């Protein structure tokens, strides 16, 4: 399944192929750079964001960072498991430790994002 990335290290992937719900989180690279994550704050289901809005907060031993909405849309579900156990973000950032599920209002925004190869090249810079 195609995963798309932003320059701010968020990823987006469809929950099911062809479905209209997308899973959003921070990349494995971002989790590594952050170091041990100690706190995560997620938005409630039902909230809507525009692309680039502050959506969540992730705090590690090193720094506190805002997580931006990679696409515009409505939050369908927040992954409260990572709020209870922030360490999961370090263990499986692009898997079980997703942040939110979103219903995008403008799926075309996804086309402008990087694919896996482009993101790998971007972070290698």
């Amino acid at each position: 399944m195609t995963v798309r990335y932003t320059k701010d290290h968020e990823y987006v992937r469809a929950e099911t192929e062809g479905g209209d719900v997308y899973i959003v989180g921070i990349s494995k690279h971002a989790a590594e750079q952050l170091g041990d994550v100690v706190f995560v704050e997620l938005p409630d289901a039902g909230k809507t964001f525009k692309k680039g809005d502050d959506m969540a907060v992730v705090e590690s031993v090193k720094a506190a960072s805002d997580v931006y909405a990679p696409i515009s849309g409505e939050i369908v579900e927040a992954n409260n498991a990572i709020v209870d156990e922030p360490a999961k973000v370090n263990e499986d950032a692009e898997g079980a430790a997703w942040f939110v599920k979103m219903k995008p209002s403008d799926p075309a925004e996804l086309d402008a994002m990087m694919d896996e190869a482009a993101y790998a090249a971007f972070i290698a810079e």
Partner: protein
Amino acid sequence: MTMNAQGRPTRSDDVATSEAPTFTGNKALQIEEDLIFEVGDFNGTGVDLPEPEGAPSRLGGMERTSVIGLPGLSEPETMRHYVRLSQKNYAIDMGPFPLGSCTMKHNPRLNEKVARMPGFADLHPLTPEAQCQGALEVIDALGHWLKELTGMPAVAMSPKAGAHGELCGMMAIKAALEACGDAATRTRVLAPESAHGTNPATAVQCGFTVDEIPADKTGRVDLAALKEMLGPDVAGIMVTNPNTCGLFERDIRAIADAVHEAGGYFYCDGANFNAIAGKVKPGDLGVDAMHINLHKTFSTPHGGGGPGSGPTVLSAALAPFAPVPYVTEENGSFSLVETRRAAKEEGEGARSFGRMTAFHGQMGMFTRALSYMMSHGADGIAQAAEDAVLNANYVQARLKSEMTTAFDGYCMHEALFDDRFLKDTGVETIDFAKAMIDEGYHPMTMYFPLVVHGAMLIEPTESESKRELDQFCDALLSLAKRAKSGDAGAFKAAPVHAPRRRLDETAAARKPVLRWTPPVAEAAE
């Protein structure tokens, strides 16, 4: 073995070289001190008064019957506890404290002598004006020095720390915007990526949103990018000069002009004023508001040693909005303007935004700072700034052979290094800092400013002698060489000579223990 007549060995030839654990856990004068609750029991007391006789309780059955749970130590136990704790502390009186952006300079003892004069030290803040003319004169005189040094027409003396001064300046800007009806539209504040964290925090506290001004490749504000960001929605900018990379913002005048042209205000973070005091007047640079950290630039104690104090100078545009209270002088007699109404009556067009503190500011810091200023004189303050810059450049020049500077060229009062010299050594900035603890130094500022990878920001201040700086540089150079020689293991293990080894920051953040709980059996008694 050589013996004297009593059989007492006088030579150390048989002394074992390895360290054996001690029974007490103490290491000679390094005492394993318990918490104060664990030193004394709850029934003990430092004062020994007899129980009053024949005085029945008048609390009507409401008197406490359970243990109150306060530590009960005798006076010698209390003294020992705190003296032992104080000996675990690193302090500017023990050695160099090279924290960048903190200006940890020597606190002259003359300041302390002046601050302890009973006429100042024992003064109650509600003393009638007629009986505290001297103290009011100190506030006025200090304000005069600050206005002279900054070239600004007004100063608010009451803010009690740097960030409080920032709040004062931003509240004055907000009040000025409200006065001209722009507050609803001018909602954005711009600050560089390298800003102190307090800058955006203050702006948000005042209801603004914050956008980052990008840096150019020399580590300074990107003027062209800033100009593009300016517009009718910008309330102002918050810029530190010299900035947190230890660099003077050369375009500062152009920055100020551009901001003013766009209708915004220029807040200058004065945390690094030590580098330019007596040399540059921020008023000449177009600054509208700037806090001055008396606890940095003017040598009052700082960092656990004393409270901060952040008087804030204001431009003519912001002066009418200055907070109360403030001191005024007429024919050699001083009085306090305590309320917004009084300010309105006293000053033409004055529209004070109100009061930030209960009283007049950090009086103990005012006396210390004025003592520093008067003993140094204007030329001495300029000399201190020059020496601070010279010392930082000396450190930068000496360390350059083994460490990598973040930016080229001379620095101001602090030298900024990045972690490129540690590349592929397996040693990171934090390991380097921990190894410095073993060498007997407080580490420099690490991982700040955020614009530099693995930043190490060294501010030696003017207090250090060449001998001290050389020893410090030699220690850092030897550490850098050791890191490059492949001895990463030693760095990862550091500190080994400190009372505690490296702490588990992750566990501390994930599972913080915020409260001491007594052992169950004792508490139940």
